[in-house]
């Protein structure tokens, strides 16, 4: 069964450093997403991406965040200058379409710890 993969599984970084979280969506999917989940809290939408551009982003997704699809398989989330409050699980998801009844498949997540 196809699945979304994410690397690394755990990333520890110092405040102010840049991090890049990587995702490989399911191969025939066209829509890509990043969500985050602070420990013990709900999953929060960050950004959706289609046709090599952002289609929607949340208030959380400020200028420190960027996304890229550098090739035909990877989808990355970059945080330019990490803050303590960026510590969270980051989930990548993908779907065939963005319309209703298009299931979003989530990856296992990257735990980001900012010290």
């Amino acid at each position, binding site marked *: 069964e196809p699945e979304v993969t994410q690397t690394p599984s755990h990333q520890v970084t110092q405040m102010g450093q840049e991090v890049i979280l990587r995702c490989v969506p399911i191969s025939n999917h066209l829509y890509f997403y990043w969500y985050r989940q602070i420990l013990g809290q*709900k*999953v929060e939408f960050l950004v*959706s991406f289609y046709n090599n551009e952002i289609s929607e982003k*949340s208030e959380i997704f400020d200028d420190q965040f960027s996304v890229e699809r550098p090739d035909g398989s990877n989808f990355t989330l970059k945080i330019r200058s990490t803050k303590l409050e960026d510590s969270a699980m980051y989930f990548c998801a993908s779907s065939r379409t*963005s319309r*209703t009844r298009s299931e*979003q498949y*989530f990856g296992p997540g990257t735990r980001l710890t900012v010290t």
Partner: protein
Amino acid sequence: GESVGLHLPTLSVQEGDNSIINCAYSNSASDYFIWYKQESGKGPQFIIDIRSNMDKRQGQRVTVLLNKTVKHLSLQIAATQPGDSAVYFCAENIPPGNTGKLIFGQGTTLQVKP
């Protein structure tokens, strides 16, 4: 405002019993709802979805009920098994919804006692 919330943070049931997990949503314009299951250390896993033009949808051992009058969504799990132990989230999509953005609720932890 946009918010989806769950009534109970933890639900404990006996193996074999039926479970009912509830969710309240505040945006009456929401037209698509999904239940996700999240096991420890894993990403959310799709369970079942329902459109706003329906009030009930059944899957394998699971049923989702939608009451638009009171903006309430529930997930029923029949014959709950230990493998059902997880955190359950409801999520909604608000029109136009063409970006795929999902808004998640707080989550309910389901504990299944053997």
